[in-house]
């Protein structure tokens, strides 16, 4: 309601105040009043950050993000993100894709990432496809390490840079 009255007013008053400039700015001025402030794509781009799947969360299904993801809970399914962090008490059953994947928790499945870090509490069962890997003392790994990330013609969309 308020929005409508306000835009009506500005549409009515504008031509009286500045008759010459009225035509051009009339439409652009209505627009900010009519759009809700929060849902603009600009705000969406600004608000990016790390999504957190907390330890009280269990997900059955796929997670996909264009941003960073931190997992502290349980995931049965694949995870895709830029930097994916698997926290110390987290468990993922499935494939983890990312630019960088850091594992402090448990992964059963596969990791495909340019850079892989297995920290001292990390527990990995399955293959790791990487271009760059760091394994800290104490980490557990049962699987093949294959430095093939971004090499052969893979359907994976990630390029090496």
């Amino acid at each position: 309601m308020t929005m409508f009255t306000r835009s009506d007013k500005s549409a009515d008053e504008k031509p009286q105040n500045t008759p010459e400039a009225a035509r051009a700015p009339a439409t652009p001025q209505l627009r900010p009043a009519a759009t809700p402030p929060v849902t603009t794509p600009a705000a969406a781009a600004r608000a990016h950050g790390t999504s957190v799947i907390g330890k009280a969360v269990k997900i059955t299904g796929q997670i996909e993000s264009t941003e960073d993801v931190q997992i502290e809970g349980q995931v049965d399914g694949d995870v895709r993100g830029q930097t994916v962090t698997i926290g110390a008490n987290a468990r993922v059953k499935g494939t983890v894709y990312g630019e960088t994947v850091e594992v402090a928790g448990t992964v059963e499945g596969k990791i495909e990432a340019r850079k892989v870090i297995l920290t001292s509490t990390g527990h990995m069962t399955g293959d790791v496809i990487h271009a760059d890997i760091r394994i800290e003392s104490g980490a557990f790994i049962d699987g093949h390490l294959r430095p093939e990330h971004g090499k052969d013609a893979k359907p994976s969309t990630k390029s090496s840079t």
Partner: protein
Amino acid sequence: MAVLPLKNFARSGRLPGDDGQSRLLPGLTIDGHLEVDGEIYIDGLVNGRIDGVTVIIGPQGTVVGDIVAREVRIEGTLEGRTFAHHVSITQTARVTGRVFHHTISVDKGARIDARMPWRPLNYFETLDQLPETRS
């Protein structure tokens, strides 16, 4: 995240020292079933069912599917069904589907194309199997 106004809503009790906020930000998509023993803030996209205690759909969030929780706050988009003791729908919300509730508040400006059936509290105890009401 200090933005969340529902801080003192009674949690389910366990998880000592759980800073445990879960937040799904723009750019994140989940297809599947989310079970949350606590609070979750969704500014991303969820396709599927969410079971939680407190579920908040942020202004940029979208949920397509069913939400079962004690408290649901909708600031973004919901397409589907909500089953909750208390539902609050804010000014920026867009809701289609059904909102099963015991108490509800709707802010001026919300865009709603939904049925909002009232249910007694004990109705919400029996939601392991969701009713078939798709239409």
